[in-house]
């Protein structure tokens, strides 16, 4: 297996995670802490990618990101380049699919922060942003970080949405799962097993850190 394949897979998963994090924090905060209407709808939308077939998500993204789609057209207008069938499209697909895992973990972590601490901070003169940055996030960060790792490991293993919107272009959009698929198609079992082994090692390492963080978070609270 080539280092370039590993590098591309990690690059896609890292970008997916970075795209997800701010949205997951904002959406999670909206559902568990804001008093605004629409929380129920947002809560359902957060989990939607878990329940929809990844290939359907990929198809939806293809429509949105394609040159005729609203986002794809805008990007083409500004940069003169297409999004679909690039590694960025692969990252976006991975981001959508892994989003619920990260957002749900962030929600659990933020809901676990004693609301009276936030109320105390408010009455001591801190506005909502300051409370989020000095109280909620520091107390919830282990749980949030665990969610980030869970999202990362899910992004690393994304297949259905990615192949639909980014294709399976070796050296360009072919991540580990897509490479495994290609090797299996080619009946190159030895190469496929090697890639599967790499995937499992990556997954175990990430999940171990994830579980350790969650244990620390539970003890911390």
């Amino acid at each position: 297996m080539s280092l370039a394949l590993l590098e591309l897979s990690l690059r896609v998963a890292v970008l997916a995670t970075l795209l997800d994090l701010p949205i997951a924090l904002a959406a999670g905060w909206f559902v568990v802490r804001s008093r605004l209407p629409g929380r129920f709808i947002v809560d359902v939308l957060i989990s939607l990618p878990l329940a929809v077939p990844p290939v359907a998500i990929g198809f939806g993204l293809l429509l949105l990101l394609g040159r005729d789609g609203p986002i794809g057209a805008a990007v083409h207008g500004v940069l003169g380049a297409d999004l679909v069938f690039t590694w960025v499209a692969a990252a976006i697909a991975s981001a959508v699919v892994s989003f619920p895992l990260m957002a749900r973990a962030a929600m659990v972590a933020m809901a676990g922060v004693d609301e009276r601490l936030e109320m105390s901070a408010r009455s001591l003169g801190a506005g909502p942003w300051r409370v989020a940055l000095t109280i909620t996030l520091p107390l919830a960060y282990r749980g949030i970080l665990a969610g980030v790792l869970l999202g990362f490991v899910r992004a690393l293993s994304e297949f259905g949405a990615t192949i639909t919107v980014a294709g399976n272009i070796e050296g360009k959009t072919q991540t580990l799962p897509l490479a495994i698929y290609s090797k299996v198609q080619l009946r190159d079992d030895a190469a496929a097993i090697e890639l599967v082994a790499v995937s499992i090692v990556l997954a175990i390492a990430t999940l171990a850190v994830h579980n350790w963080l969650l244990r620390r978070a539970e003890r911390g609270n």
Partner: protein
Amino acid sequence: MSKQRDRVLRFRVAKGYPGFALECEATFESGVTAVFGATGSGKTTLLNCIAGLTRPDEGSIELLGDTVYSSTARVNKPPEKRRLGYVFQDSALFPHMNVRDNITYGYKLTPVESPKADLDQLVELFVLSDLMDRGVRALSGGERQRVALARALAASPRMLLLDEPLASLDVSFRGAIIRYLKRVWRELHVPMVYVSHSISEVLALAEDVLVLGGGRAVMQGWPSQALVNPRVTAIADYATLENLLDAEVVAPANADGLVALEVGTVTLTAPDVSTEVGESLTVSVPAGDIILALEVPSRISAQNIVPGTVSEVHTLETRVLVYVDIGTEVVVEITRGALRDLEIREGLQLYLVIKSTSIVALEGPTG
């Protein structure tokens, strides 16, 4: 505490929940005002409305002439703009900060145009200098509540809102916190709203009490009046009516293990306390444990016989509460029969008979 009492807070709030509605209107003057009521009477909801943590359905809240909420004028200042110090029952200290960072959290956010609190004074008042660099997880209940009070006061609030600050404390810490709260008013002149379901605490701390029942104001007035209002007695728990008195240790334990305490102008003997001579503490004397006598009883086992003058007599259903001035006011519970036989009335000179073992120090070694 006979300071000029200015109007501090005026409010009219209505807030409905499924199965419960708060509808209440009152004016609080400076000093310590208690909000008394049973669990579920709406005390905390009222406090949260005042603090800006809960938005009323309608009404108005005016703090020192500043309208912080008004449904008609569409004003609803967020809690951080109201400058009210809120102290929760369980302290709600920030667990990821040490004592110092907890106390300076609000201090650093004091608006430039507001007077800054005197941190050194607060550290001294609440005896925190040895705790400043400690994490808050390792603090005792009493220490936590002292830090919470200092943290709220460090933000130089216009008023302190205290939600049952003694309810989750061990008996050994309650006395100290009561003394600290009295000093907050005496030395810092910060008015307080003290929410409690203990009539004894209300008697010990407040000059004015608003009694809530089922989300509505039942009465407002002197705590001693509240104690005998039939609508209050229906919700108050008199089984635990006790005098919470300021005392100072004036002589160490004698050979019998009894110390001398000065309470008001009289000296009482009490079981040994873990407090040094010259230090003050709060003691509890249950109202039902005090005997009234018209003359000095002889050959009696009780160690304390104290002269006093009856200042008020209140009769409610089967029980009688007699307030006796012994240099400080003490409430005594007697039966109707005793009231008849002794012909107790206002102005009568008599003696209080108190067993030493009925005087309980509400402070432990670490207060």
